[in-house]
Protein backbone atom coordinates (compact mmCIF):
# COMPACT_ATOMS: atom_id res chain seq x y z
CA UNK A 1 0.00 0.00 0.00
CA UNK A 2 1.42 3.40 -0.86
CA UNK A 3 2.38 5.53 2.09
CA UNK A 4 0.13 8.39 1.08
CA UNK A 5 -2.88 6.09 0.97
CA UNK A 6 -1.93 4.65 4.34
CA UNK A 7 -1.63 8.09 5.96
CA UNK A 8 -4.98 9.10 4.43
CA UNK A 9 -6.67 5.80 5.31
CA UNK A 10 -10.45 6.03 5.01
CA UNK A 11 -11.76 6.47 8.55
CA UNK A 12 -14.55 3.99 7.80
CA UNK A 13 -11.94 1.24 7.79
CA UNK A 14 -10.88 2.34 11.27
CA UNK A 15 -14.52 2.44 12.40
CA UNK A 16 -15.08 -1.06 11.00
CA UNK A 17 -12.05 -2.48 12.80
CA UNK A 18 -13.15 -0.90 16.09
CA UNK A 19 -16.67 -2.28 15.64
CA UNK A 20 -15.36 -5.77 14.92
CA UNK A 21 -12.85 -5.50 17.76
CA UNK A 22 -15.66 -4.62 20.14
CA UNK A 23 -18.26 -7.10 18.91
CA UNK A 24 -16.25 -10.30 18.50
CA UNK A 25 -14.81 -10.52 22.05
CA UNK A 26 -18.30 -9.93 23.45
CA UNK A 27 -19.76 -12.73 21.33
CA UNK A 28 -16.82 -15.11 21.83
CA UNK A 29 -15.24 -14.57 25.22
CA UNK A 30 -11.44 -14.50 25.32
CA UNK A 31 -11.12 -14.53 29.12
CA UNK A 32 -8.12 -12.29 29.72
CA UNK A 33 -6.83 -12.61 33.30
CA UNK A 34 -7.61 -9.88 35.83
CA UNK A 35 -5.12 -8.72 38.49
CA UNK A 36 -6.53 -6.53 41.27
CA UNK A 37 -4.72 -3.30 42.12
CA UNK A 38 -4.33 -1.69 45.56
CA UNK A 39 -7.05 1.03 45.19
CA UNK A 40 -9.64 -1.67 44.40
CA UNK A 41 -8.34 -4.04 47.05
CA UNK A 42 -8.65 -1.25 49.62
CA UNK A 43 -12.40 -0.85 49.05
CA UNK A 44 -12.91 -4.61 49.02
CA UNK A 45 -11.00 -5.00 52.27
CA UNK A 46 -13.03 -2.23 53.92
CA UNK A 47 -16.34 -3.87 52.99
CA UNK A 48 -14.99 -7.17 54.31
CA UNK A 49 -14.72 -5.54 57.76
CA UNK A 50 -18.40 -4.49 57.71
CA UNK A 51 -21.31 -6.72 58.60
CA UNK A 52 -25.02 -6.95 59.50
CA UNK A 53 -25.04 -3.99 61.89
CA UNK A 54 -23.39 -1.59 59.46
CA UNK A 55 -24.85 0.79 56.92
CA UNK A 56 -23.43 1.81 53.56
CA UNK A 57 -24.68 4.87 51.66
CA UNK A 58 -24.60 4.11 47.93
CA UNK A 59 -24.89 7.19 45.76
CA UNK A 60 -25.79 6.64 42.10
CA UNK A 61 -24.22 9.69 40.46
CA UNK A 62 -24.16 8.52 36.86
CA UNK A 63 -26.44 8.06 33.88
CA UNK A 64 -26.88 5.76 30.87
CA UNK A 65 -23.93 7.31 29.01
CA UNK A 66 -21.44 5.74 31.41
CA UNK A 67 -23.55 2.78 32.55
CA UNK A 68 -21.41 0.16 30.73
CA UNK A 69 -18.44 1.17 32.91
CA UNK A 70 -20.12 1.97 36.19
CA UNK A 71 -23.14 -0.35 36.45
CA UNK A 72 -20.93 -3.48 36.72
CA UNK A 73 -19.03 -1.95 39.64
CA UNK A 74 -22.27 -0.83 41.30
CA UNK A 75 -23.70 -4.35 40.94
CA UNK A 76 -20.51 -5.90 42.36
CA UNK A 77 -20.39 -3.58 45.37
CA UNK A 78 -24.10 -4.06 46.14
CA UNK A 79 -23.75 -7.84 45.80
CA UNK A 80 -20.84 -7.63 48.23
CA UNK A 81 -22.95 -5.63 50.69
CA UNK A 82 -25.91 -8.00 50.44
CA UNK A 83 -23.68 -11.05 50.69
CA UNK A 84 -22.40 -9.71 54.01
CA UNK A 85 -25.86 -8.47 55.05
CA UNK A 86 -24.60 -4.89 55.17
CA UNK A 87 -27.59 -2.55 55.02
CA UNK A 88 -27.73 -0.15 52.09
CA UNK A 89 -29.25 3.31 51.83
CA UNK A 90 -29.27 4.28 48.15
CA UNK A 91 -29.67 7.76 46.71
CA UNK A 92 -29.13 9.43 43.34
CA UNK A 93 -27.62 12.88 42.80
CA UNK A 94 -27.08 12.85 39.01
CA UNK A 95 -29.91 14.53 37.11
CA UNK A 96 -29.59 12.75 33.74
CA UNK A 97 -30.85 9.27 34.52
CA UNK A 98 -29.38 8.78 37.98
CA UNK A 99 -32.76 8.00 39.53
CA UNK A 100 -33.49 5.11 37.15
CA UNK A 101 -29.91 3.79 37.30
CA UNK A 102 -30.10 3.60 41.08
CA UNK A 103 -33.56 2.07 41.18
CA UNK A 104 -32.84 -0.52 38.50
CA UNK A 105 -29.47 -1.69 39.87
CA UNK A 106 -30.67 -1.82 43.47
CA UNK A 107 -33.83 -3.65 42.40
CA UNK A 108 -31.86 -6.21 40.36
CA UNK A 109 -29.41 -6.93 43.17
CA UNK A 110 -32.08 -7.05 45.87
CA UNK A 111 -34.03 -9.58 43.78
CA UNK A 112 -31.04 -11.97 44.07
CA UNK A 113 -31.44 -11.90 47.87
CA UNK A 114 -35.15 -12.53 48.55
CA UNK A 115 -34.55 -12.81 52.29
CA UNK A 116 -33.66 -9.10 52.43
CA UNK A 117 -36.48 -6.68 53.12
CA UNK A 118 -37.07 -3.32 51.47
CA UNK A 119 -37.14 -0.71 54.22
CA UNK A 120 -35.22 -2.86 56.69
CA UNK A 121 -32.13 -4.11 54.84
CA UNK A 122 -32.09 -1.58 52.03
CA UNK A 123 -34.00 1.47 50.94
CA UNK A 124 -33.99 3.68 47.86
CA UNK A 125 -34.54 7.34 48.65
CA UNK A 126 -34.50 8.49 45.02
CA UNK A 127 -33.05 11.61 43.40
CA UNK A 128 -32.48 15.03 44.93
CA UNK A 129 -31.36 18.16 43.09
CA UNK A 130 -28.67 20.64 44.22
CA UNK A 131 -25.87 18.11 44.56
CA UNK A 132 -23.46 19.88 46.91
CA UNK A 133 -26.24 21.45 48.96
CA UNK A 134 -27.89 18.04 49.34
CA UNK A 135 -24.57 16.45 50.36
CA UNK A 136 -23.98 19.13 52.96
CA UNK A 137 -27.54 18.98 54.27
CA UNK A 138 -27.36 15.20 54.78
CA UNK A 139 -24.64 15.95 57.33
CA UNK A 140 -27.34 17.51 59.48
CA UNK A 141 -30.32 15.38 58.56
CA UNK A 142 -31.18 12.84 55.87
CA UNK A 143 -34.87 13.45 56.42
CA UNK A 144 -34.54 17.13 55.49
CA UNK A 145 -33.12 16.16 52.07
CA UNK A 146 -35.19 13.01 51.49
CA UNK A 147 -38.46 13.38 53.40
CA UNK A 148 -39.87 10.46 51.37
CA UNK A 149 -38.40 7.34 49.84
CA UNK A 150 -38.59 6.93 46.05
CA UNK A 151 -41.72 4.82 46.62
CA UNK A 152 -43.38 7.75 48.43
CA UNK A 153 -43.10 6.36 51.99
CA UNK A 154 -42.27 9.00 54.67
CA UNK A 155 -38.75 8.28 55.95
CA UNK A 156 -39.87 8.35 59.56
CA UNK A 157 -41.97 5.27 58.78
CA UNK A 158 -39.02 3.34 57.28
CA UNK A 159 -37.32 1.11 59.91
CA UNK A 160 -33.85 1.49 58.34
CA UNK A 161 -34.11 5.28 58.16
CA UNK A 162 -35.16 5.44 61.81
CA UNK A 163 -31.55 4.44 62.53
CA UNK A 164 -29.99 6.86 60.03
CA UNK A 165 -30.21 10.51 61.04
CA UNK A 166 -27.08 11.84 59.35
CA UNK A 167 -23.56 10.86 58.26
CA UNK A 168 -22.65 9.88 61.82
CA UNK A 169 -24.84 6.80 61.36
CA UNK A 170 -23.21 5.83 58.03
CA UNK A 171 -20.17 3.52 58.06
CA UNK A 172 -19.11 4.06 54.46
CA UNK A 173 -20.19 6.15 51.48
CA UNK A 174 -19.66 4.64 48.04
CA UNK A 175 -20.25 7.02 45.16
CA UNK A 176 -20.69 5.61 41.68
CA UNK A 177 -20.01 8.78 39.79
CA UNK A 178 -19.49 9.94 36.26
CA UNK A 179 -17.87 13.31 36.81
CA UNK A 180 -16.92 15.73 39.54
CA UNK A 181 -19.54 14.44 42.01
CA UNK A 182 -17.06 11.80 43.26
CA UNK A 183 -14.61 14.60 44.10
CA UNK A 184 -17.33 16.45 46.02
CA UNK A 185 -17.96 13.41 48.19
CA UNK A 186 -14.24 13.45 49.02
CA UNK A 187 -13.58 17.16 49.51
CA UNK A 188 -16.97 18.06 50.99
CA UNK A 189 -18.37 15.08 52.86
CA UNK A 190 -15.19 13.32 53.97
CA UNK A 191 -13.37 16.58 54.69
CA UNK A 192 -16.20 18.17 56.70
CA UNK A 193 -17.90 15.19 58.29
CA UNK A 194 -15.15 12.58 58.44
CA UNK A 195 -17.27 9.76 57.00
CA UNK A 196 -15.16 7.28 54.96
CA UNK A 197 -15.72 7.64 51.22
CA UNK A 198 -14.93 5.38 48.27
CA UNK A 199 -15.50 6.26 44.65
CA UNK A 200 -16.21 4.21 41.56
CA UNK A 201 -15.85 6.32 38.46
CA UNK A 202 -15.08 6.22 34.75
CA UNK A 203 -11.56 5.66 33.43
CA UNK A 204 -11.52 9.26 32.18
CA UNK A 205 -12.21 10.70 35.64
CA UNK A 206 -10.24 8.17 37.69
CA UNK A 207 -6.81 9.87 37.31
CA UNK A 208 -8.13 12.98 39.04
CA UNK A 209 -9.22 10.94 42.07
CA UNK A 210 -5.72 9.62 42.73
CA UNK A 211 -4.90 12.87 44.51
CA UNK A 212 -7.76 12.23 46.94
CA UNK A 213 -6.70 8.60 47.28
CA UNK A 214 -3.17 9.63 48.15
CA UNK A 215 -4.34 12.14 50.78
CA UNK A 216 -6.66 9.58 52.37
CA UNK A 217 -9.83 11.49 51.51
CA UNK A 218 -11.05 8.45 49.65
CA UNK A 219 -10.13 5.00 50.90
CA UNK A 220 -10.69 3.12 47.66
CA UNK A 221 -11.06 3.82 43.96
CA UNK A 222 -12.61 1.75 41.18
CA UNK A 223 -11.37 3.25 37.93
CA UNK A 224 -13.37 2.40 34.83
CA UNK A 225 -14.13 -1.00 33.44
CA UNK A 226 -10.75 -2.31 34.65
CA UNK A 227 -11.58 -1.35 38.23
CA UNK A 228 -15.00 -2.96 37.92
CA UNK A 229 -13.48 -6.18 36.54
CA UNK A 230 -10.95 -6.25 39.40
CA UNK A 231 -13.74 -5.90 41.95
CA UNK A 232 -15.75 -8.67 40.28
CA UNK A 233 -12.65 -10.86 40.32
CA UNK A 234 -12.12 -10.24 44.05
CA UNK A 235 -15.80 -10.88 44.77
CA UNK A 236 -15.89 -14.18 42.91
CA UNK A 237 -12.62 -15.29 44.56
CA UNK A 238 -13.98 -14.55 48.05
CA UNK A 239 -17.55 -15.77 47.37
CA UNK A 240 -17.31 -18.66 44.87
CA UNK A 241 -21.09 -19.20 44.96
CA UNK A 242 -21.39 -15.97 42.94
CA UNK A 243 -19.29 -17.30 40.06
CA UNK A 244 -22.25 -18.70 38.07
CA UNK A 245 -23.83 -15.22 38.12
CA UNK A 246 -20.77 -13.84 36.32
CA UNK A 247 -20.47 -16.73 33.91
CA UNK A 248 -24.10 -16.60 32.75
CA UNK A 249 -24.42 -16.31 28.98
CA UNK A 250 -26.01 -13.13 27.72
CA UNK A 251 -25.28 -11.16 30.89
CA UNK A 252 -22.87 -8.25 30.60
CA UNK A 253 -20.11 -8.09 33.21
CA UNK A 254 -16.97 -5.99 33.50
CA UNK A 255 -14.74 -9.07 33.13
CA UNK A 256 -16.41 -9.80 29.79
CA UNK A 257 -16.25 -6.14 28.77
CA UNK A 258 -12.50 -6.04 29.45
CA UNK A 259 -11.95 -8.50 26.58
CA UNK A 260 -13.44 -5.97 24.15
CA UNK A 261 -11.62 -3.05 25.74
CA UNK A 262 -8.29 -4.88 25.55
CA UNK A 263 -8.75 -5.64 21.85
CA UNK A 264 -9.82 -2.04 21.14
CA UNK A 265 -6.80 -0.68 23.00
CA UNK A 266 -4.58 -2.93 20.90
CA UNK A 267 -6.22 -1.71 17.68
CA UNK A 268 -5.81 1.95 18.68
CA UNK A 269 -2.14 1.42 19.63
CA UNK A 270 -1.54 -0.37 16.35
CA UNK A 271 -3.06 2.51 14.39
CA UNK A 272 -0.94 5.03 16.28
CA UNK A 273 2.20 3.02 15.48
CA UNK A 274 1.23 2.60 11.81
CA UNK A 275 0.33 6.27 11.49
CA UNK A 276 3.62 7.42 13.03
CA UNK A 277 5.70 4.90 11.05
CA UNK A 278 4.14 6.09 7.79
CA UNK A 279 4.55 9.72 8.84
CA UNK A 280 8.27 9.26 9.64
CA UNK A 281 8.91 7.30 6.45
CA UNK A 282 7.31 10.03 4.37
CA UNK A 283 9.38 12.74 6.09
CA UNK A 284 12.58 10.77 5.44
CA UNK A 285 11.67 10.38 1.82
CA UNK A 286 10.91 14.09 1.44
CA UNK A 287 14.16 15.17 3.07
CA UNK A 288 16.06 12.68 0.88
CA UNK A 289 14.44 14.21 -2.24
CA UNK A 290 15.25 17.77 -1.22
CA UNK A 291 18.31 19.07 -3.15
CA UNK A 292 21.48 19.76 -1.09
Amino acid sequence: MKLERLVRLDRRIIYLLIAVGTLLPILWRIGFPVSPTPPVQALFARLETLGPGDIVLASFDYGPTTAPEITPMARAVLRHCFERRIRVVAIALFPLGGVTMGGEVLGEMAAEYPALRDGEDYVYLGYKDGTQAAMKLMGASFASVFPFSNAGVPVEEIPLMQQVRNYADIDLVVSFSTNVIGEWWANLVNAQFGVPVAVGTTAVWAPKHFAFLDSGQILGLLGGLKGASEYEHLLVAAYPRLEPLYERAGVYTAMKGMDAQTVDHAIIMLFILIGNAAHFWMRRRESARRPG
Partner: protein
Amino acid sequence: MFWKLRLPLILTFLVGCVPVVTFFLAERVPGVSIVPTTVERYMVIIAGFALLLGVVNVVQGSVRRIAQRRPGWPFAISLLAGLLVMGSFGVLSALRVGPFQGLLAGPRGEVTPFLWMTRHFFDPLQAAIFSLLAFYIASAAFRAFRVRNLEAALLIIAAFLVMLGRTPLGEYIFRWAPGGERWLPGLTDWFMAVPNTAAQRGVIIGAALGAASLSLRVILGIERSYLGAKER
Protein backbone atom coordinates in the same frame (compact mmCIF):
# COMPACT_ATOMS: atom_id res chain seq x y z
CA MET B 1 -31.17 51.00 39.43
CA PHE B 2 -31.87 49.93 43.02
CA TRP B 3 -34.07 46.93 42.10
CA LYS B 4 -31.94 45.78 39.19
CA LEU B 5 -28.47 46.30 40.61
CA ARG B 6 -28.15 47.41 44.22
CA LEU B 7 -30.72 45.08 45.77
CA PRO B 8 -29.29 41.93 44.08
CA LEU B 9 -25.79 43.00 45.13
CA ILE B 10 -26.91 43.50 48.75
CA LEU B 11 -28.71 40.15 48.79
CA THR B 12 -25.69 38.42 47.26
CA PHE B 13 -23.42 39.92 49.90
CA LEU B 14 -25.67 38.95 52.81
CA VAL B 15 -26.46 35.43 51.61
CA GLY B 16 -22.83 34.86 50.57
CA CYS B 17 -21.53 35.87 53.99
CA VAL B 18 -23.89 33.58 55.88
CA PRO B 19 -22.15 30.24 55.18
CA VAL B 20 -18.69 31.78 55.67
CA VAL B 21 -19.48 33.43 59.01
CA THR B 22 -21.61 30.60 60.40
CA PHE B 23 -18.91 28.05 59.49
CA PHE B 24 -16.66 29.61 62.11
CA LEU B 25 -19.40 30.45 64.63
CA ALA B 26 -21.38 27.20 64.50
CA GLU B 27 -19.41 25.45 67.22
CA ARG B 28 -18.93 28.54 69.41
CA VAL B 29 -22.40 30.06 69.36
CA PRO B 30 -25.32 27.73 70.15
CA GLY B 31 -28.21 27.75 67.69
CA VAL B 32 -26.23 29.33 64.83
CA SER B 33 -26.02 26.06 62.88
CA ILE B 34 -29.73 26.34 62.03
CA VAL B 35 -28.92 29.27 59.72
CA PRO B 36 -26.63 27.52 57.19
CA THR B 37 -28.84 24.43 57.34
CA THR B 38 -31.85 26.54 56.38
CA VAL B 39 -29.89 28.25 53.59
CA GLU B 40 -28.77 24.86 52.25
CA ARG B 41 -32.37 23.68 52.25
CA TYR B 42 -33.29 26.74 50.18
CA MET B 43 -30.42 25.92 47.80
CA VAL B 44 -31.82 22.44 47.14
CA ILE B 45 -35.18 24.00 46.21
CA ILE B 46 -33.64 26.78 44.10
CA ALA B 47 -31.49 24.22 42.23
CA GLY B 48 -34.72 22.61 41.05
CA PHE B 49 -35.84 25.95 39.63
CA ALA B 50 -32.50 26.29 37.86
CA LEU B 51 -33.37 23.10 35.96
CA LEU B 52 -36.73 24.62 35.09
CA LEU B 53 -34.96 27.69 33.79
CA GLY B 54 -32.88 25.47 31.51
CA VAL B 55 -36.01 23.80 30.18
CA VAL B 56 -37.64 27.16 29.42
CA ASN B 57 -34.48 28.29 27.64
CA VAL B 58 -34.38 25.15 25.49
CA VAL B 59 -38.07 25.45 24.60
CA GLN B 60 -37.72 29.13 23.65
CA GLY B 61 -34.66 28.47 21.50
CA SER B 62 -36.25 25.48 19.76
CA VAL B 63 -39.53 27.29 19.05
CA ARG B 64 -37.61 30.22 17.59
CA ARG B 65 -35.57 27.86 15.39
CA ILE B 66 -38.72 26.15 14.10
CA ALA B 67 -40.58 29.42 13.51
CA GLN B 68 -37.67 30.94 11.58
CA ARG B 69 -36.92 27.68 9.74
CA ARG B 70 -33.26 27.92 10.68
CA PRO B 71 -30.93 25.07 9.57
CA GLY B 72 -31.64 21.94 11.57
CA TRP B 73 -35.17 22.98 12.53
CA PRO B 74 -36.62 19.42 12.16
CA PHE B 75 -34.26 18.35 14.93
CA ALA B 76 -35.76 21.07 17.13
CA ILE B 77 -39.16 19.43 16.62
CA SER B 78 -37.82 16.05 17.74
CA LEU B 79 -36.12 17.73 20.72
CA LEU B 80 -39.37 19.37 21.79
CA ALA B 81 -41.28 16.14 21.28
CA GLY B 82 -38.81 14.22 23.46
CA LEU B 83 -38.86 16.94 26.11
CA LEU B 84 -42.66 17.02 26.17
CA VAL B 85 -43.13 13.26 26.28
CA MET B 86 -40.43 12.38 28.85
CA GLY B 87 -41.16 15.49 30.89
CA SER B 88 -44.89 14.82 31.06
CA PHE B 89 -44.32 11.13 31.79
CA GLY B 90 -42.00 12.13 34.64
CA VAL B 91 -44.37 14.69 36.14
CA LEU B 92 -47.42 12.40 35.87
CA SER B 93 -45.41 9.53 37.36
CA ALA B 94 -44.28 11.66 40.28
CA LEU B 95 -47.89 12.74 40.89
CA ARG B 96 -49.07 9.12 40.40
CA VAL B 97 -51.86 9.99 37.96
CA GLY B 98 -53.78 7.11 36.36
CA PRO B 99 -51.44 4.49 34.87
CA PHE B 100 -48.40 6.60 35.78
CA GLN B 101 -47.69 5.04 39.14
CA GLY B 102 -44.14 6.04 39.99
CA LEU B 103 -40.83 6.26 38.13
CA LEU B 104 -39.57 2.72 38.64
CA ALA B 105 -41.02 -0.80 38.57
CA GLY B 106 -44.13 -1.41 40.65
CA PRO B 107 -44.27 -3.59 43.76
CA ARG B 108 -45.13 -6.66 41.64
CA GLY B 109 -42.42 -5.86 39.11
CA GLU B 110 -44.80 -4.20 36.62
CA VAL B 111 -43.07 -1.71 34.35
CA THR B 112 -44.38 1.84 34.61
CA PRO B 113 -44.73 3.99 31.46
CA PHE B 114 -41.82 6.21 32.56
CA LEU B 115 -39.57 3.19 33.09
CA TRP B 116 -40.61 1.76 29.71
CA MET B 117 -39.69 5.01 27.97
CA THR B 118 -36.39 5.13 29.89
CA ARG B 119 -35.43 1.56 29.01
CA HIS B 120 -36.47 1.74 25.34
CA PHE B 121 -35.59 5.32 24.40
CA PHE B 122 -33.57 7.31 26.93
CA ASP B 123 -30.99 4.69 27.95
CA PRO B 124 -30.26 3.29 24.45
CA LEU B 125 -30.10 6.74 22.82
CA GLN B 126 -27.80 8.15 25.51
CA ALA B 127 -25.55 5.11 25.34
CA ALA B 128 -25.47 5.21 21.52
CA ILE B 129 -24.42 8.87 21.41
CA PHE B 130 -21.66 8.31 23.95
CA SER B 131 -20.50 5.13 22.20
CA LEU B 132 -19.71 7.13 19.07
CA LEU B 133 -16.75 8.54 20.98
CA ALA B 134 -14.91 5.24 20.70
CA PHE B 135 -14.86 5.53 16.91
CA TYR B 136 -13.89 9.20 16.93
CA ILE B 137 -11.05 8.54 19.39
CA ALA B 138 -9.68 5.72 17.26
CA SER B 139 -9.82 7.86 14.13
CA ALA B 140 -8.30 10.87 15.92
CA ALA B 141 -5.54 8.70 17.39
CA PHE B 142 -4.54 7.53 13.93
CA ARG B 143 -4.63 10.98 12.33
CA ALA B 144 -3.48 13.32 15.06
CA PHE B 145 -1.13 11.39 17.35
CA ARG B 146 2.09 12.23 15.53
CA VAL B 147 5.47 12.42 17.22
CA ARG B 148 6.48 15.87 15.97
CA ASN B 149 8.52 16.97 18.99
CA LEU B 150 9.82 15.83 22.38
CA GLU B 151 6.62 16.67 24.26
CA ALA B 152 4.50 14.70 21.80
CA ALA B 153 6.90 11.77 22.12
CA LEU B 154 6.64 11.80 25.93
CA LEU B 155 2.86 12.03 25.68
CA ILE B 156 2.60 9.05 23.35
CA ILE B 157 5.02 6.95 25.43
CA ALA B 158 3.00 7.69 28.58
CA ALA B 159 -0.26 6.94 26.73
CA PHE B 160 1.10 3.61 25.51
CA LEU B 161 2.36 2.62 28.94
CA VAL B 162 -0.96 3.45 30.58
CA MET B 163 -3.01 1.75 27.85
CA LEU B 164 -0.89 -1.38 28.11
CA GLY B 165 -0.71 -1.34 31.90
CA ARG B 166 -4.45 -0.88 32.34
CA THR B 167 -5.30 -3.94 30.26
CA PRO B 168 -4.19 -7.59 30.51
CA LEU B 169 -1.94 -6.98 27.47
CA GLY B 170 0.58 -5.36 29.78
CA GLU B 171 0.81 -8.57 31.80
CA TYR B 172 1.23 -10.77 28.74
CA ILE B 173 4.08 -8.85 27.12
CA PHE B 174 6.74 -9.62 29.77
CA ARG B 175 5.26 -12.81 31.11
CA TRP B 176 8.34 -14.71 29.99
CA ALA B 177 10.47 -12.93 32.61
CA PRO B 178 10.29 -13.81 36.32
CA GLY B 179 7.85 -11.28 37.84
CA GLY B 180 7.51 -9.73 34.40
CA GLU B 181 3.73 -9.69 34.44
CA ARG B 182 3.86 -6.89 37.04
CA TRP B 183 6.40 -4.68 35.20
CA LEU B 184 4.02 -2.72 32.99
CA PRO B 185 1.06 -2.66 35.40
CA GLY B 186 3.45 -1.60 38.16
CA LEU B 187 4.85 1.19 35.99
CA THR B 188 1.30 2.31 35.20
CA ASP B 189 0.42 2.31 38.89
CA TRP B 190 3.50 4.47 39.52
CA PHE B 191 2.45 6.86 36.73
CA MET B 192 -0.98 7.21 38.32
CA ALA B 193 0.28 7.51 41.89
CA VAL B 194 3.19 9.92 41.37
CA PRO B 195 3.35 12.15 38.24
CA ASN B 196 -0.39 12.06 37.64
CA THR B 197 -1.23 12.76 41.29
CA ALA B 198 1.24 15.64 41.40
CA ALA B 199 -0.22 17.22 38.27
CA GLN B 200 -3.83 16.66 39.34
CA ARG B 201 -3.10 18.12 42.74
CA GLY B 202 -1.83 21.28 41.09
CA VAL B 203 -4.93 21.47 38.93
CA ILE B 204 -7.28 20.85 41.86
CA ILE B 205 -5.58 23.46 44.06
CA GLY B 206 -5.54 25.95 41.21
CA ALA B 207 -9.19 25.37 40.46
CA ALA B 208 -10.11 25.66 44.15
CA LEU B 209 -8.20 28.94 44.49
CA GLY B 210 -9.88 30.22 41.35
CA ALA B 211 -13.31 29.24 42.66
CA ALA B 212 -12.60 30.90 46.02
CA SER B 213 -11.40 34.04 44.27
CA LEU B 214 -14.44 34.18 42.01
CA SER B 215 -16.79 33.56 44.95
CA LEU B 216 -15.19 36.42 46.86
CA ARG B 217 -15.53 38.70 43.84
CA VAL B 218 -19.21 37.79 43.49
CA ILE B 219 -19.91 38.27 47.20
CA LEU B 220 -18.16 41.65 47.25
CA GLY B 221 -19.98 42.79 44.12
CA ILE B 222 -16.86 43.12 41.97
CA GLU B 223 -17.95 40.39 39.57
CA ARG B 224 -21.37 41.32 38.20
CA SER B 225 -21.67 39.29 35.01
CA TYR B 226 -24.46 37.19 36.55
CA LEU B 227 -26.56 40.39 36.64
CA GLY B 228 -25.79 41.22 33.05
CA ALA B 229 -23.76 44.19 34.29
CA LYS B 230 -20.12 45.01 33.56
CA GLU B 231 -17.40 44.18 36.08
CA ARG B 232 -16.73 46.97 38.54
